[in-house]
């Protein structure tokens, strides 16, 4: 308090005060209350004051009076304008703040309080609020501010023990009025946030700084509660969130003050008997209130009973705020709940469930810690409420989950999870949830399946097989969520539900529940079992996440204990995981026998996911389980359903990540034995397509060595072919497999000799005399010095050897009697050697493998008469590959060729050009590799049927009609070319063993499409080919350009021919 300051301020405000005084001190009649002059005067005073006084300055009472006196005159005037009053209130606010706050005489306070209240809110009139409504927000705000300033100074007085303003009963009516006014501002001024905030702030000062007495406040509580909850729960108008926060805080503090358990002296008694528990009003029966005292007159038991119900209803409205957009609101709401739970647990016992529910819902968006439970004074009581609330949620769960509103479902699930996490999980609750989920989800699935038709189509197994093979090494996971019940549940709900079960699993050991879910499945449908497994999967995941941190710890302990020789307690995979694995396997097995549908797909996916989860849980330990559980996963990789493939791939990748550094390839390669064993069982039951696919994949990945280990499985396929050769798909699968095996045999044994030397096997033609194959042999033969029988013996050709053996034999017969035993024996050895020479195995392919190939060919041969074109083509493809391998052992090739000949040649005259072409490919190889062995057969075949081939007939007809280019429709052209190729190869390979006349017949037949380059490939018959062509089309007209072209010129393979008349 400095005089200088006063002087300074006085100097500043004096002129304006003088002006104001001139107006105010004038006779009342002369004062124009509405005049601008007055307003300006007041405004000047306020502004000067406001600018000259710092908030913490204290001005002298003289100065205060100097300022206040004109105001007091003005206040006697009726109908001052709102603006004037506003300035007056503002000035008073400054006066209170800077002068009276420190020292406010009681008498002045008694005057000021009703005055300010009146100025701000008019006269008290509970029925009619028009007066208060008519005032400007500006005025109200100034009033509320003034009031807060006033209350602050009263607080100061109270603290200084000068007086306690509201302990005097005479002030209570005014108190009622001011509260009404301020509440009115709060409730009815949605457009002025500042006013609402100020009102709430003023109320807060009044209640908690000034009065701070639950007993006193209890009188005005009901109005407060109802107004404040109205503000909070107003749906129509959007209240600013800061106001909401303030309101919640105020309400919370108020309730805490009035209903404080300790203050009320409430004690809790446990329910003693069942009768007690069953009494209707049981909430209050175990609550005891302390007797009335000086401090507690109003708040009696009956008051509590009456008001707490009101409070409960009021609080019930707060639910609308639980998903308010602003987290500040939710946070203060949470704080509100927590403090009510903490301080008013008994008194507001009826509202606690509401609070709990609110918290549960808030847990959707806020992290709610469970600390309030720890600090709670009666945990049992609270837990009881929590668990009963949980039961309510759980009971409502079945209704909720069917709701189309995802948010609602999510909220419900979240609340359950929250309450469970607070330590209320028990097996009963989980079982109930599990049961409900199974029933409801199943219900939805059933409904859905009725609506939508079966969408899964059986795709082509052979292409599937190929897809799997091709993609094995660069399969990548479809990042689309691996959620399963997309058709009935929103992804977020699925996730929430999964989380909930995980959380449940985390809280208690789910062994019993899991076991009971899985064991008790006799009456369950596939869907239900799928859902069960899905739940179990999540429970397990939850349980194991809890185990993970201990795992390291355990291992550490292990190490120590082992060294001490004490019992080692290794981390053990929970027993139920194996039950689950088994369940998965049996489900997948069961499904493999069912027709594909949405449910089989879903259940497969769940089972696969679960295997993946277990694999991830067991890490390297899962290696031991591969023996049983790898096959279902790999098998599903070959599924028709992309969804299943995705899930299978996910699990396969998990396994390979944990065991084989992420290599899917290694996963298969290292475990082919398990896969093959599983396949052998399935094949025996003719579950072929996928099994064959896996077998093919194994073969492709590991190579031929693996085939040696599954020869018995191939025997099964042969056996299946014996029995079920009528089934096209089955046969087709097997021949695709055979083709792959043949490829692998070739790669294994013939990779060095990439190109087989045909000539080595092809020297039996009588036109290639004496078994000679090259010029060196000829020179040797001509070389007299070396022309010795020994040479022949050293390198005997086939026929030579035979003769030699026969000679020896005949010798034996003739001279048998004469020969001594020794000689005889020697001869026998000789002949044995020679026999060995004949049967000598020259092929790089081992005999056993060769036999296997023969077996495949034998089945192919038999099934070439199958009505399925697709199968025939596949067999021919296989044959084409295998002939080359047979050719490595020429002596064994011939019987095979002899068998094949009639069938293949029969296919050459088939109607279907595709088959003809494929058969031609095989025939070409046969001719190339068997050489003169088939000369007679080929000539025979030509004469009897090939000559009359329908394509040849057509072309010859066409070419006789016209000399123009032959045009055959579609594949026929290519087919014709293939047939020509057969003839060309035959003529080249068989050479002079074909009579000239026949040869020229052949050439003539295929001439319409022969071009120049091909002519050379006719070998010995090239000249005839030239001749035939020349006769027919004349010589190529060299240098013929497009301009010179005539209509009748023929273009064959880009070369133009003009027909010239032959000179005879």
């Amino acid at each position: 308090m400095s005089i200088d300051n006063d002087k300074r301020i006085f100097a500043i405000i004096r002129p304006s005060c003088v002006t104001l005084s001139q107006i105010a001190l004038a006779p009342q009649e002369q004062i124009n209350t509405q005049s601008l002059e007055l307003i300006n005067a007041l405004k000047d005073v306020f502004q000067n004051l406001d600018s000259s006084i710092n908030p913490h300055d204290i001005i002298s009472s003289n100065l205060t009076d100097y300022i206040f006196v004109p105001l007091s005159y003005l206040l006697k005037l009726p109908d001052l304008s709102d603006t004037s009053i506003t300035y007056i209130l503002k000035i008073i606010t400054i006066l209170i703040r800077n002068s009276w706050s420190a020292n406010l005489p009681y008498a002045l306070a008694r005057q000021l309080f009703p005055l300010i209240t009146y100025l701000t809110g008019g006269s008290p009139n509970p029925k009619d609020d028009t007066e208060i409504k008519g005032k400007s927000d500006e005025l109200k705000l100034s009033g509320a501010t003034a009031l807060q300033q006033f209350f602050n100074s009263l607080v100061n007085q109270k603290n200084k023990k000068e007086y306690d303003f509201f302990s005097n009963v005479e002030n209570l009516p005014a108190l009622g009025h001011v509260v009404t006014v301020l509440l009115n501002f709060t409730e009815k001024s949605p457009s002025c946030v500042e006013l609402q905030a100020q009102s709430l702030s003023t109320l807060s000062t009044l209640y908690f700084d000034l009065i701070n007495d639950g007993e006193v406040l209890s009188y005005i509580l009901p109005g407060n509660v109802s107004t404040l909850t109205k503000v909070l729960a107003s749906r129509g108008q959007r209240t600013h969130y800061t106001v909401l926060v303030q309101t919640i805080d105020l309400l919370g503090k108020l309730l805490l003050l009035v209903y404080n358990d300790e203050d009320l002296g409430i004690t809790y008694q446990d329910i003693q008997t069942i009768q007690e528990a069953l009494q209707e009003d049981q909430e209050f029966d175990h609550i005891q209130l302390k007797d009335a005292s000086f401090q507690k007159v109003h708040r009696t038991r009956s008051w509590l009973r009456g008001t707490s119900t009101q409070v409960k209803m009021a609080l019930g409205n707060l639910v609308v705020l639980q998903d308010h957009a602003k987290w500040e609101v939710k946070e203060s709401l949470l704080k509100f709940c927590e403090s009510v739970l903490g301080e008013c647990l008994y008194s507001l016992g009826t509202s606690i469930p509401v609070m709990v529910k609110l918290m549960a819902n808030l847990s959707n968006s806020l992290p709610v810690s469970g600390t309030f439970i720890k600090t709670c004074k009666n945990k049992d009581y609270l837990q009881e409420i929590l668990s009963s609330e949980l039961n309510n949620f759980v009971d409502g769960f079945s209704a909720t989950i069917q709701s189309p509103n995802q948010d609602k479902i999510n909220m419900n699930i979240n609340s359950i999870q929250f309450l469970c996490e607070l330590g209320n999980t028990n097996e009963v609750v989980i079982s109930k949830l599990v049961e409900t989920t199974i029933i409801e989800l199943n219900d939805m699935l059933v409904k859905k399946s009725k609506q939508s038709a079966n969408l899964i189509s059986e795709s082509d197994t052979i292409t599937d097989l190929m897809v799997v093979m091709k993609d094995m090494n660069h399969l990548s996971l479809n990042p689309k969520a691996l959620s399963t019940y997309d058709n009935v549940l929103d992804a977020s709900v699925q996730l929430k539900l999964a989380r909930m079960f995980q959380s449940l699993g985390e809280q208690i050991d789910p062994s019993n529940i899991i076991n009971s879910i899985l064991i008790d499945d006799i009456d369950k449908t596939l869907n239900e079992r799928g859902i069960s497994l899905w739940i179990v999967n999540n429970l397990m995941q939850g349980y194991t996440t809890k185990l993970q941190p201990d795992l390291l710890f355990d291992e550490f302990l292990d190490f120590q204990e082992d060294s001490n020789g004490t019992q080692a307690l290794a981390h053990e995979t929970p027993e139920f995981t194996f039950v689950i694995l088994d369940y998965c396997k049996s489900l997948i097995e069961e499904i493999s026998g069912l027709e594909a549908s949405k449910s089989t797909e879903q259940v497969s996916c769940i089972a696969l996911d679960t295997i993946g989860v277990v694999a991830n849980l067991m890490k390297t330990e899962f290696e031991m389980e591969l023996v049983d559980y790898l096959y279902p996963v790999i098998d599903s990789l070959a599924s028709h359903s992309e969804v299943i493939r995705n899930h299978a791939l996910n699990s396969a990748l998990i396994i390979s990540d944990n065991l084989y550094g992420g290599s899917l390839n290694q996963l298969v390669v290292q475990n082919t034995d398990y896969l093959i064993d599983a396949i052998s069982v399935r094949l025996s039951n003719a579950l072929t397509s996928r099994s064959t696919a896996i077998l093919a994949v194994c073969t492709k990945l590991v190579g031929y060595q693996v085939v040696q280990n599954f020869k018995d499985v191939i025997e099964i396929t042969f056996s299946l072919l014996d029995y079920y050769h009528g089934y096209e798909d089955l046969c087709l699968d097997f021949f695709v497999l055979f083709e792959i095996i043949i490829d692998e045999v070739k790669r294994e044994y013939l990779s060095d000799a990439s190109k087989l030397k045909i000539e080595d096997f092809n020297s039996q033609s009588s036109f290639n005399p004496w078994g000679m194959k090259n010029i060196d042999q000829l020179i040797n033969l001509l070389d007299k010095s070396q022309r010795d029988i020994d040479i022949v013996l050293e390198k005997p050709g086939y026929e030579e050897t035979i003769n030699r053996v026969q000679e020896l034999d005949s010798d034996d017969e003739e001279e048998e009697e004469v020969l001594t035993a020794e000689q005889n024996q020697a001869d026998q050895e000789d002949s044995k050697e020679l026999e060995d020479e004949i049967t000598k195995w020259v092929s790089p392919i081992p005999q056993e493998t060769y036999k296997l190939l023969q077996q495949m060919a034998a089945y192919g041969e038999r099934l070439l008469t199958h009505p399925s074109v697709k199968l025939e083509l596949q067999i021919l493809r296989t044959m084409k590959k295998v002939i080359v391998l047979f050719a490595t052992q020429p002596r064994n090739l011939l019987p095979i060729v002899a068998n094949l000949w009639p069938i293949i040649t029969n296919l050459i005259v088939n109607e279907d050009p595709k088959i003809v072409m494929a058969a031609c490919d095989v025939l070409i190889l046969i001719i190339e590799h068997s050489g003169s062995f088939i000369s007679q057969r080929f000539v025979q075949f030509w004469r009897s049927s090939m000559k009359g081939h329908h394509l040849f007939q057509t072309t010859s007809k066409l070419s006789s009609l016209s000399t123009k280019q032959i045009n055959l429709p579609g594949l026929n052209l290519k087919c014709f070319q293939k047939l020509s190729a057969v003839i060309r190869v035959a003529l080249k390979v068989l050479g002079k063993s074909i009579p000239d006349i026949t040869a020229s017949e052949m050439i003539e037949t295929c001439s319409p499409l022969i071009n120049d380059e091909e002519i050379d490939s006719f070998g010995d018959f090239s000249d005839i080919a030239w001749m035939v062509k020349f006769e027919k089309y004349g010589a190529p007209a060299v240098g013929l350009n497009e301009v010179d072209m005539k209509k009748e010129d023929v273009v064959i393979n880009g070369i133009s021919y003009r027909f010239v008349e032959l000179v005879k």
Partner: protein
Amino acid sequence: MSIVQENSRYPIFTLRKHTHAITATEFVKIPISTTSRLITPSTSTSNSSNSLQTTCKPYVITADEKGNIKLWDLKTHRVVKEIDQAHEGSILSIRQLGITTNTEGTYNINSTLFGFVLTHSRDHTIKFWKLFDDQGLILLKEVYEMPVNALNFSNVDVMDNFLVSANTSDSNKFDIYDLKFLYVESAKHLTREFEAVDLFKQCQQNKYKFTEFNIRGKEEDDPENVNRVDKFGIIMKFLWITKEILAVGYESGHTLIVKVDIKAKKMTIQQISAHHFPNPILSISYNKDNNTLLTSSIRSKIIQHDLSNLQSEPQILKINLTKISNIVTYTDKLILSSWTGYIKFFQNSRQGSETPSYQEIAQFKKPKGLLVGNLNIIGNNQSNDIESQKQYTVKPNSLAVFIGDDLKKGIDPQYQRRLDRRDLMVLQKNFLSVGFDDGTVMVYDDI
């Protein structure tokens, strides 16, 4: 659609790694490894050092016609140890030494011999292998080799330290060896306790009347004895029943049960049975649960000898299966394999009664394609000669059984907790292994 016939019992898994025909399979018991503490001396004082309280896990040893042997873990279904060319020829018998099961179902372990395995091959040798070391670590290391006669296809059998095998020079006679040398330092050599025992001669000396021989013509008709079967012929099968009782099956179809007194070097014939005459004995099996001996030949019958009453006449059991090459029998079960390709499972429906009645409960036959590859370049690929006929079936060559005896006494829960889950599963099962001509070994674990 299935190629598995009705009533078929498909094996639980198949071991595939041999590339040649399996000729012998045998289950061996190996103390659970790395836990040497599991082999703790028994508390019983009666037989102090000879008895060990051990938890043993069964493994299976398989051998093929090329002399390769493999040791398989029944848990992983994979080879844990293999010896290529362990012998130069087909392996005929595999026996584990030093462990027998007694009537209470517990193991009698002879600690000095436990750990040894012998293999007997057509290459005329018996090889002894150290199967595991003191720590229970699997070795399968050859320790000794002895020459032996294997001109015939007879097996060898071992009981404690006594080995019975065909005589080194005469396949009609047999020898009994003492294997003490394996563990007694001083006994450096193999000792032959009995040499060239000729039971036929003994019979003649005992003036035993072989009525069956008389059916076959008179001596004058065939003075060179070319077609006469008036001897036992070569030995087909041996089987030790106890230390004192040995069963021998002959080419002539005779089965002899003899009492062996090694100390007194004395052998007494207890029973002679000629029920299979004139067909050679193919298999002998002992059922310790009812103390009976079963024998088979190529005919569709099995002869059951009651060993508790050797005076009683052996019973003839008609069986709907010919060429029974192997018999396995325990409790009321009977499992047979035949050269026809069948494995058949029987159960005695008249248990307790003196005359058993075996009902077929299941069977199995390996599927095989009808068309075969043939390297014979002369003649038709699909000729119906005997060679290719045979190929239509996959012959089961060997049959072995493991009965989880440990289970009967129950595994000490303290150990049980420490055992690997899958090891425990193996311990709690009975196994049957079938070795096939195609190199596969099929295993049942649910018999």
